[in-house]
């Protein structure tokens, strides 16, 4: 859902751009506190995987394709703010290096995918995780649900921007965007859940949000592995 140049008016570009600059700035500030020996290479790996996986468009209904977003994956592994930096970096390289997503829409794309699809969706994930029983299956269930919702929320934000810009009325753009992304979101949920499950199996210490080990039921399952 990379918005090209021409879809947004100047006001929408400016407002989303300003919010995104502020949020990325805050992310950089948080990163100074959160980065450690493990998270430096993990951040690089997340960016590489997200870039590669975003190239793999899979067909969905009716001559349409969808691709991975990766916001929830990055946030579940690295936390919401480092996660948002990963997605913002990928979007910047895509816009400047590959002409994917307009440069005037970069602020909106960062807003939709690195903030709504990553930071906000991480808190959705955290909410699900808090509500569900403390075990591995529920954790992965929360990952899956939040991944699907992240694509819906990001595409909804995109529809609102199109409407505010006068490009397509909300009553037209919103149902159309949500309809197609409800299917694309299933791919997002499958990929994110599979990758998190693998990392949890191999290196549970790299799943940053797997943090209940010391305070609750997760401990029994993880101590033997790490």
């Amino acid at each position: 859902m990379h918005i090209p140049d021409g879809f947004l008016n100047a006001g929408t570009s400016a407002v989303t751009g300003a919010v995104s600059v502020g949020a990325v700035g805050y992310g950089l500030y948080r990163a100074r506190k959160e980065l450690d020996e493990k998270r430096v290479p993990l951040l690089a790996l997340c960016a590489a995987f997200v870039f590669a996986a975003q190239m793999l468009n899979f067909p969905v209904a009716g001559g349409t394709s969808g691709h991975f977003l990766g916001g929830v994956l990055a946030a579940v592994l690295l936390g919401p703010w480092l996660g948002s930096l990963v997605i913002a970096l990928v979007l910047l390289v895509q816009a400047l290096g590959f002409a994917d997503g307009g440069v005037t829409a970069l602020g909106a794309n960062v807003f939709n995918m690195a903030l709504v699809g990553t930071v906000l969706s991480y808190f959705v994930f955290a909410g699900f995780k808090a509500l569900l029983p403390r075990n591995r299956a529920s954790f992965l269930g929360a990952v899956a649900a939040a991944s699907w919702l992240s694509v819906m929320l990001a595409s909804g934000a995109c529809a609102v921007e199109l409407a505010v810009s006068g490009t397509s009325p909300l009553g037209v753009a919103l149902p159309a965007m949500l309809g197609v992304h409800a299917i694309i979101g299933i791919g997002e949920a499958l990929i994110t859940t599979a990758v998190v499950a693998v990392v949890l199996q191999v290196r549970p210490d790299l799943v940053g949000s797997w943090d209940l080990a010391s305070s609750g039921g997760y401990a029994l399952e993880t101590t033997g592995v790490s």
Partner: protein
Amino acid sequence: MDARHKSLYVFILAGLAFSVALALIVSPFASSSPDGLEKVAEDKGFIEKAEETEPAWNSAPIPDYAFPGLTEKVTVEDEKTGEVVEEEKPTRLATALAGLTGTAAVFVMGWGLALLLKAGKKEDAGEAGLQASSGA
């Protein structure tokens, strides 16, 4: 380098190899259909707004995930007229090299950015950092 760190770098390298393999080997076979937003823009009649707009940035080194200079002539049937026309199309190698370049570039940039930010943290609080890492 202790065993734990060795295992971390093995994990990172394996993950990078997997990502590069996706970009290099799988991406040339990805769907070329319009994505969700493009399809909505076509169906709802506002795709022209993008097509008629001059891009604000024309210097992307690898536009549209096609490594420059690698094209082949293919004959395609025009959807509307049924006419058979010859078209220049990027080869699969062009897509694979674009994927490899981008994946490697964001990996290096991500690592560099994280190192820079981490260096900034050391200046603030060496001890707090030590405590945090020993507690992890």
